[in-house]
């Protein structure tokens, strides 16, 4: 186990370096790198960029940028927002995005596993039908539509005064965006849990436990869930990536000052330093989350030697 963690931690910077180079190539090879200057960049910003990175060409920049990033934890200055450094932008918007994303993942996992389990236990009952409805909506309705409908609802008389509309002020304002964001991953989690729970419920050890007089409640939530939850765990990694994608659009609908808007804007404005900063931060987060999920896998199912066995 320790070897695995060590190995993954060694891999992390390598993967990030690959992502950095690929992003750099994609962004700077595209016409309009700041040094060739066919896009209007403030001369003072460019001057500062050249001095700080001791660079006159993209190639030199490619080499000196990571150095500064590692030694000084400095992502450089934004090329478009004159007054801001990339660090400032990330520092101010990352916490909001992270909280929103984790909140959505939490709702998706807890509700998804709960509904999926209940649906499997009472197959054909109303919870089962609800689970079908959730997965159908989740796979067929883009989250921006769900978000817009929720926004409209929050503006209606029913919820008047509970949520700030189109603004982000208090933590309670994260509830609706979180719900909108959680629906797509929840749809998959419900389906996964239901199927694997049905599978586990028909296994021999359940019959044995029933025969020995263990309560149904205990069998389902204690014995079966631990087995049935494994496919869900392995889906959490992709789900995190999916939530992140969704957060771009949901943040836009609800006007949340998160990292998503900066990502899209920076790409459209060719704000190269900001793109690189945002991509690296996002990727690092997703990679760390994946690592955490892998570790969780080993805890939930001690039989699995992550990475060791086939």
């Amino acid at each position: 186990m320790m070897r695995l963690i060590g190995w993954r931690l060694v891999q992390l910077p390598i993967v990030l370096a690959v992502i950095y180079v690929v992003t750099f190539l994609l962004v700077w090879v595209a016409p309009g790198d700041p040094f060739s200057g066919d896009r209007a960049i403030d001369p003072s910003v460019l001057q500062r960029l050249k001095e700080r990175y001791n660079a006159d060409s993209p190639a030199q920049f490619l080499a000196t940028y990571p150095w500064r990033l590692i030694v000084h934890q400095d992502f450089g200055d934004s090329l478009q927002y004159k007054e801001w450094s990339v660090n400032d932008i990330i520092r101010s918007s990352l916490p909001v995005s992270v909280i929103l994303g984790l909140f959505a993942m939490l709702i998706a996992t807890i509700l998804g596993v709960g509904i999926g389990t209940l649906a499997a236990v009472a197959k054909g009952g109303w919870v089962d039908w609800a689970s079908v409805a959730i997965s159908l909506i989740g796979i067929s309705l883009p989250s921006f539509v769900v978000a817009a409908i929720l926004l409209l609802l929050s503006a209606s008389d029913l919820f008047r005064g509970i949520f700030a509309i189109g603004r982000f002020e208090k933590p309670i304002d994260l509830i609706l965006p979180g719900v909108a964001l959680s629906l797509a991953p929840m749809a998959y989690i419900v389906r996964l849990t239901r199927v694997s729970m049905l599978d586990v419920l028909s296994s021999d050890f359940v019959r044995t436990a029933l025969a020995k007089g263990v309560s149904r409640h205990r069998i389902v939530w204690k014995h079966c869930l631990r087995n049935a939850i494994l496919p869900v765990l392995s889906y959490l990694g992709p789900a995190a990536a999916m939530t992140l994608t969704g957060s771009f659009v949901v943040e836009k609908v609800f006007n949340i000052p998160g990292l998503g808007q900066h990502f899209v804007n920076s790409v459209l404005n060719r704000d190269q330093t900001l793109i690189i900063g945002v991509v690296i931060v996002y990727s690092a987060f997703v990679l760390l989350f994946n690592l955490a999920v892998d570790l969780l896998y080993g805890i939930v199912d001690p039989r699995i030697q992550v990475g060791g066995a086939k």
Partner: protein
Amino acid sequence: MTQAAAIAITDDIIAPSDTFWHRLFSSGRLLIGGGVVLVVLVVCLFTLPLTLNTQSTFYYDQQIGEHVRQPPSATVTGWFGYDTLGRSLLARCLLGGTISLMIGLASATIAVVVGTTVGLISGYIGGWVDSLMMRIVDILYGLPYILLVILLKIAIEPQLGALFDAMKTDRWFSSAQAANLVVMFLSIGLVSWLTLARVVRGQVLTLREQPFIEAARALGLPRYRIFMRHVLPNLIGPITVYATLTVPSAILQESFLSFLGVGIRLPMPTWGSLASEGIAALSPVKFYWWMLTFPCLLLMLTLLSLNFLGDGLRDLLDPKRDAAKI
């Protein structure tokens, strides 16, 4: 299975034959899903001469001042109402459907080619090639695809536009629009092959150990022949299933991109961009419901049908795999 057995016992008849065709026609999901997709596709394609013809009243960009934000009415062009520029929403939904489905199909094709190739190589060669490739797939899996899509789009689109300009391919679309479309297929396709690569690799790994492959090897068949004649045909089932399931997810991804303003360029419609126009027209004061409802309904109907079709195909072609593997 149990149902068939029950019939055989109670009615004392011979159990219905379990042939491919029988299963095909007895699967409701498959028939309904496939039927709906087919109808939508045919209607969208057959109205193309109307929606792309600048002279017809059905032209997708026909702006009529007095029709601005008119609710649905009895005239054919007004069935779905009109949008903020007075364009017939029905015409835009029809062309939008064509483009959305086209993006879905083209991206799925690219995803199938890349995913199958990677999966086959990985599974068949094995060893360090396999571990390296699967590691790459793992990493890409973890990254939000939209990063890659937008970066690819920014990197390739201008060059492609210049290329199309040089080739003078502008008959219906301008070269910029054509480049926009192609980049969309490419970038969505190039991020959608991961699941397929994993599935194909897994399948190859199991197939490799099967006795019939061993027999073929013992008979001295050359490697490529074993590959083409014995391995590949056994993969058709899972590949078809995942290709079908890639189509709806590609359509959904395009709608996200359209919403973020980096999708298909306006005035070209897609269901996604129509839905986001509908959202832009939403306000608590006046609700132009038709601008959101119709594109969303079409999108939902098609995505659901495609998913049903995929699930149905999975039961048909790949009965051993359980139904909720993603």
